[in-house]
């Protein structure tokens, strides 16, 4: 692998970006998300259908936040998939949700990786029914 510039300190970039943004209480966000999921469950009554909708919404939101992300982080395009995973885990999640994740199970042959979140603002106060556990 060709050596490029010194490895970037993504954690520091993420922390600095989060420091500067306007923030709201995360519980408000959690409550709103919870209310939306609850309403969607009433609408569709089927977990898979609800998840499909949530994923669509998440996708649309993701497409919209990338501009602000690029502007605030000062990062350019990622040079490889490994970098993408680190940027997502340490800068992206930090800038918007105030949390970081661990990248695990990175598999460059399959273009796959896992993001492990120790805490997730979207899931606070949530108790899953047995069939969803």
């Amino acid at each position, binding site marked *: 692998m060709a050596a490029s510039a010194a490895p970037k300190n993504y954690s520091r970039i993420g922390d600095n970006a989060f420091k500067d943004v306007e*923030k709201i209480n995360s519980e408000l966000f959690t409550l709103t998300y919870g209310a939306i999921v609850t309403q969607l469950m009433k609408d569709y009554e089927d977990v898979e259908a609800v998840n499909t909708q949530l994923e669509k919404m998440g996708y649309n939101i993701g497409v919209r936040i990338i501009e602000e992300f690029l502007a605030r982080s000062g990062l350019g395009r990622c040079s490889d998939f490994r970098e993408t995973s680190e940027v997502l885990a340490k800068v992206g999640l930090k800038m*918007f949700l105030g949390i970081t994740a661990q990248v695990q199970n990175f598999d460059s042959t399959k273009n796959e990786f896992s993001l492990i979140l120790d805490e997730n603002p979207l899931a606070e106060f949530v108790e899953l029914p047995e069939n969803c556990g």
Partner: protein
Amino acid sequence: MQATQSGWKAKEVHESCFELLHIETVLHYALTSPEDCSAKLEKIGYSVGSRLVERYTRERGRFSDSLEMVKFICKEIWTDVFKKQVDNLKTNHKGIFVLNDAKYRALNKISASSATQSPPPVPSPAQLTAFGCGLIKGVLCSMGMPCEVSADFSSPNVQLPACNFTIKMEKDPR
């Protein structure tokens, strides 16, 4: 810091998380079930309002009357959710309150003519204010003050992005 005053954890997220989630939800319902879009958004706002006020009153205790509660909505709740206070509050002291937000966040990005366009744009001002109506209703109803809340953004003295939220209490204020 306000968060610790009301006993909340001091965790924060980027304000655009809420904004983006809201607009995405409005679009979802505007496109999938336009006929009851506003009703569903109001229910979501109601749920958030009623749970928010639960957490506030734990620290603060009960409110003495409806005016105090509406003022609380105008200051604390509006600031926590919309990052600004309500700009103007009027009441007839007989159970009707009008909250004026001169620059309602969700209406910031739509054009001034949206209020009168026919057919209305997607999303429409009514759909964009439904959450706010539900929020106010949720706060008041869960504090034992049943009411109806409506939004007005097309009267002569209310131009987008301004919005008037009108509260009609179901019984006389204490």
